[in-house]
């Protein structure tokens, strides 16, 4: 589904990504972790071409991102993304947040888009808030809306960039529950997260990044059993302390 091949990226002289290679198969859940600044967000943003890269290629569902002929907006519309800070559109109601891209990008009618949005809103348990604005919801609620908004586009894969790290602790689970459910339904997912409980529960593979490199890329069992690298061990011991 996603194939990342030898991707390197620089900001000026600073190399953020070094020769990253990995794959996410259909139906697979891959968790990406690693210390702050290791390039996790950058890597996941290259997958839907929000961040350009200078070397290598990424192929999503058979479409090459590096190919200049690729219609990037169209490709992005098929890849759902959820951000750390939700990024709902503050001037639109929840209903419109869910509908606008369906209408303007997929060309669905207003009624069709709203019906689809309402269904997804119900699924994340927020039907009662349809008429509200994002600023009137809690962080956890906003993030669930953001997931619903991405799902409304019928994505073939979902990307998550630390979806729970900006939330108050008591709201983390309501968002993780939605993600777990999604994983169980067979959604292909690539998640940057430090929620190791989530990883244990649903991940097929875990990728550990450090200083722009993919240092570990192994099955969940191997990763939690005995990560090979010293850095990964150290990292794991640190986050599992909490």
């Amino acid at each position: 589904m996603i194939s990342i091949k030898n991707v390197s990226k620089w900001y000026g002289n600073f190399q953020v990504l070094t020769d990253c290679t990995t794959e996410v198969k259909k139906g697979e859940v891959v968790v990406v972790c690693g210390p702050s600044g290791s390039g996790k967000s950058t890597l996941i943003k290259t997958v839907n071409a929000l961040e350009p890269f200078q070397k290598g290629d990424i192929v999503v569902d058979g479409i090459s991102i590096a190919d200049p002929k690729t219609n990037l907006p169209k490709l992005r519309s098929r890849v759902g993304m959820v951000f750390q800070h939700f990024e709902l559109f503050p001037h639109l109601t929840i209903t419109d947040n869910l509908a606008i891209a369906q209408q303007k990008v997929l060309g669905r009618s207003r009624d069709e888009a709203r019906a689809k949005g309402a269904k997804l809103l119900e699924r994340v348990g927020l039907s009662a808030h349809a008429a509200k604005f994002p600023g009137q919801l809690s962080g956890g609620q906003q993030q669930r809306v953001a997931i619903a908004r991405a799902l409304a586009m019928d994505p073939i894969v979902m990307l998550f960039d630390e979806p729970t790290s900006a939330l108050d602790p008591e709201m983390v689970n309501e968002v993780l529950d939605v993600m777990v459910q999604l994983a169980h339904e067979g959604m292909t997912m690539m998640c940057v997260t430090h929620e190791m409980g989530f990883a244990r529960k649903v991940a097929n593979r875990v990728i550990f990044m450090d200083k722009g490199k993919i240092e570990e890329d192994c099955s969940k069992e191997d990763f939690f059993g005995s990560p090979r690298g010293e850095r990964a061990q150290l990292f794991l011991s640190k986050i599992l302390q909490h």
Partner: protein
Amino acid sequence: MGQYQWNWGIILEEVYGTGEYYYQWLITGLGWTVATALSAWVIALILGSLIGTVRTMPNKWLAGLATAYVELFRNIPLIVQLFLWFFVLPEVLPEQMGTWMKQDMPMPEFITAVIGLGLFTSARVAEQVRTGIMALPRGQRYAGQALGFTLGQTYRYVLLPMAFRIVIPPLTSEFMNVFKNSAVALAIGVTELTFQMRQITGEYAPGNPIEVMTMVSVIYLIMAFSVNRLMAFIERRTQVPGYISGGSK
């Protein structure tokens, strides 16, 4: 110094030997002021929004061009710009066009003032709009594009609606400025409010400048106040429930 002869009723008196009244002159002046300011504001708002938006686009060439535009129009004094448009441009244009501007262009003073004031103000509006866009969290742009919006759609549906809301207060100042700055149009002969004031106090009623100037000042104040109220109304109407500016970082 002699005794000042107060005469607040002067405004209702006839301008000697013309059959017109002073208040009519002021109303004519007010009309030109409003026409100049509003027309210039339309240009400034459209062009300024465009230029300010372009300055935030990823294309370095376009953004650079827009920056040059802003610096050019923002940093030359308005009155100099008007003189350049009015006196210099017709001379440097190809002969036919120059002649047309000087002889056949309708209402040359007014048109020149509107364009000059409009472009000057557009550079300032562009700066405000750019600031508004830059004030939005970076993630908003990502979020729009991640949903499949093109760059244009991302601006149209995601960035600009919030950016404009954020910059309503500074745009209010610019809107008020355009009324005050329109007085400069008298330098190229637009018979706007300040022009009329100078004409009255200079030639026709030199004995009562204080009354006339006071009235004109009050008229400017009323215009500024109206703009202020209008913008406050728009701000209230477009307020986003639950949104605290800068709060959704």
